[in-house]
């Protein structure tokens, strides 16, 4: 069936299986591979995108359930050439190693900051606990999010 939604500010439509996940639509059909397939059951957070500003596990939400909504993926986070402050903070703090979980981490961090939940290290650690990082860049991720919070 057809689904129409806004992806990174652009209206898009596609024919999808009614039971296909948003992640499949983004990756296979729209070629937006920034959202990663890590576990397909919401355990790892690598597929995190923003739907109407809310952090969403795109592996667990049906593509068709997002009709009319606005989806932001890592590819659409920067404002043209201007990086989102969280992207810049991840660079400045080297808050990644292999980088596979990074798009999900960044989008979860954006949501954490927007929700005003980055006031302490523990708050950040709690909010970000749905996003696994096997390389364990955890200390730098906390530092990056806290730095953005401090600058706000």
């Amino acid at each position: 069936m057809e689904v129409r939604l806004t992806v990174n500010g652009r209206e898009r439509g596609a024919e999808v299986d009614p039971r296909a996940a948003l992640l499949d639509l983004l990756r296979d059909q729209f070629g937006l591979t920034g959202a990663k397939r890590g576990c397909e059951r919401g355990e790892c957070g690598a597929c995190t995108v923003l739907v109407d500003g809310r952090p969403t596990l795109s592996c667990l939400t049906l593509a068709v359930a997002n009709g009319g909504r606005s989806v932001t993926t890592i590819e659409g986070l920067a404002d043209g050439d201007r990086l989102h402050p969280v992207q810049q903070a991840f660079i400045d703090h080297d808050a990644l190693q292999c980088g596979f979980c990074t798009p999900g981490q960044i989008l979860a961090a954006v949501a954490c900051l927007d929700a005003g939940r980055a006031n302490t290290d523990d708050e950040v650690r709690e909010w970000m606990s749905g996003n696994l990082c096997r390389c364990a860049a955890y200390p730098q991720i906390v530092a990056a999010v806290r730095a953005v919070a401090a600058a706000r």
Partner: protein
Amino acid sequence: MSAVNRRDFLKVTAAVGGGLLVTINLAACRDKGAAGGTKAADPSVFVRINPDNTIVVTIPKSEMGQGVRTSLAMLVAEELDADWNQVRAELAYYDPKFGDMGTGGSSSVRQNWMPLRTAGATLRAMLVATAAKEWGVDAAECTTDNSFVHHAKGDRKLHYGALAAKAATQPIPADVKLKAKADWKLMGKDRVGIDVGPITHGTAQYGLDVKVPGMLYASIERTLVFGGTVKSFDKAAALAVPGVKDVVEIKGVGIGVTVHPGVAVVATNTWAAMKGRKALTIQWEAGPHAAESSESYLATMRAAVEKKGEETVNTKGDPDGVLAKSAKVISGVFETPFLSHATMEPMNCTASFKDGQVELWSPTQYPDMATAEVAKALGLKPEKVRVNLTMMGGGFGRRINPDFSVEAALVSKAIGQPVKVVWTREDDLRHDFYRPCSVHRIDASLGPDGMPEAWRHRVSTPSIDVSYQEKPPEGGWGPNETDGSANMSYRIPNRSCEYTLQASGVPRGWWRAVSTTHGMFAVESMIDDLAAAAGKDPVEYRIAMIDGVWWKQPPDFPEYPFRADRLKGVLQLAADKAGWGKPLPKGHAMGISCGYDHLSYAAEVFEVSVVNDRLRIHRVVVAADAGPVVNPNGARAMLEGGVIMGLSAALKERVTIKGGGVAQKNFDSYSLLRINEAPVVIEAYFVETDTAPTGFGEPAVPPVAAGLANAIFRATGKRLRTLPLDIKLA
């Protein structure tokens, strides 16, 4: 300063597009033995200076988050006096001319330390000679900085990009001098990763993101019982799923590769392939391992360490005799489970078979092995196989194995079309090459001075090597399995290490730091018990007996001998930085451990408290010595990441075998340490011994479990000897 004769290994030519191309024969330059020794092809690596001033370094090693693209590019850029902002790293493809491209064993910086710096220094000399000629001045009057050649008298300067084409026609200087550490401008200073841009933009392309024209997607149902085979299958329901194009049987490839028998469903998209796979009906033949379980292994390994081992890996003096006569023998039995690598990016590979050739885009740590095994499995000559490297979402040793590459090549050949084989998390967790489970028993006795007099260490594991070869290596299965056990570095006059092979159908592999991850847990826990029994301080006790490595095996890398002073150095530094022996907050205690792994030295202190049986880790201090540090930022990341991965294994990770297969399916049952569970404070320090560098990728992992158990012991009086440790985080 060290002078290097590089006439043997450097070739400089003009590059297509007007740049300068340098070919380095690494085999002629690499330090003896460090290239692995088995593949003496014509290894080369490329550096390209473009007219637009960018400098491209092709990295002949796999990037999986360890920062090798950054550190290796820094080796070139430092000696070249390059503008770091203009340096790019390019992914290599497999070619024997690059030499051993296998990435593991914390070896990348060690192997490339001389050749890449020499390449940079040589290029620099040629650029200087070109500029000097242009200006009609003496080259000695010229200096370089930030990709410019300057003339000391006057204000003339030329950019490297403008000089590159002419520099290619310069004679290659016979000798170049490499910079002393004091003269480093780039190295030794923090650099963020060279790939952070594309990664944070979401444009970095991992294996899973590869798309080639006409590509289909495949998902494979593999035998869940190791050693099982497909008896029969019905593909009708799978073929009825919209988007499914084909269903093909995978026969499996045996020992050394371990492609599991199964059935592949090929579709126009990932979702349809997975849905089709679920619709398959397969009858399995369970095979010879179906009755095996973690419990059955444990029972036989426990029994094995109660008697003399099948192999005596190491022996000195008369440990059995001394123990038999001792009034008091201190004993400990230590048990560790199978572990999964659980890289964030599940295994995958894209393959395109056409006209008797196959091209792969593979997130592999070992393209050499992938090429050889793909060729063998498809009946092709290796030159008909091209393996392109992709970015990798973690490796930790898992991606050394060629199984996922071979599997993709087999599917593509079967369907005659390009295909990406996508593994689910379940596939990845249940078809890994696992860190072997183990049981260790150590019996020791103390002399009148409290120092150990005898030490008998018995180890039983399913050997890793058995998964790759029919016959044991020279010296038996034991030596590789007892790295960290047989070769521990404490001075004990009577000691032995014995090994007994445990049979198992579970595929085994190299999990970050490999055998030291369990051996050092046993040794460093036991040393702490002995210190406690002797009433001595664990740091002083260790320093008093760190000696040499007593090891009857010939060393793998004789040019990097074990040095007791370096192990003592990191131990002392970690203790000092942690404030060892100073008063702690009420209820807090510290534990320490140290070890030698992959030619590097590490020591760790854990400050913990245990309240209502709940553990808090307040602070971790890690000190490491891998020689001079190329990129402190990257090295620190390896130490911190190594500590957290070690904690994850020490506190949470366990693969359970039931009915000959893996019981865990996803991160809910195989749980990794999360950000809210990781310690907030991890401090990393370096001892930079003035020697050729080794590597930081692995050595921080093995001391973790014992260091933490030692801290818990000192906080509670309870000695935990089974991993994961039976304690919950607060």
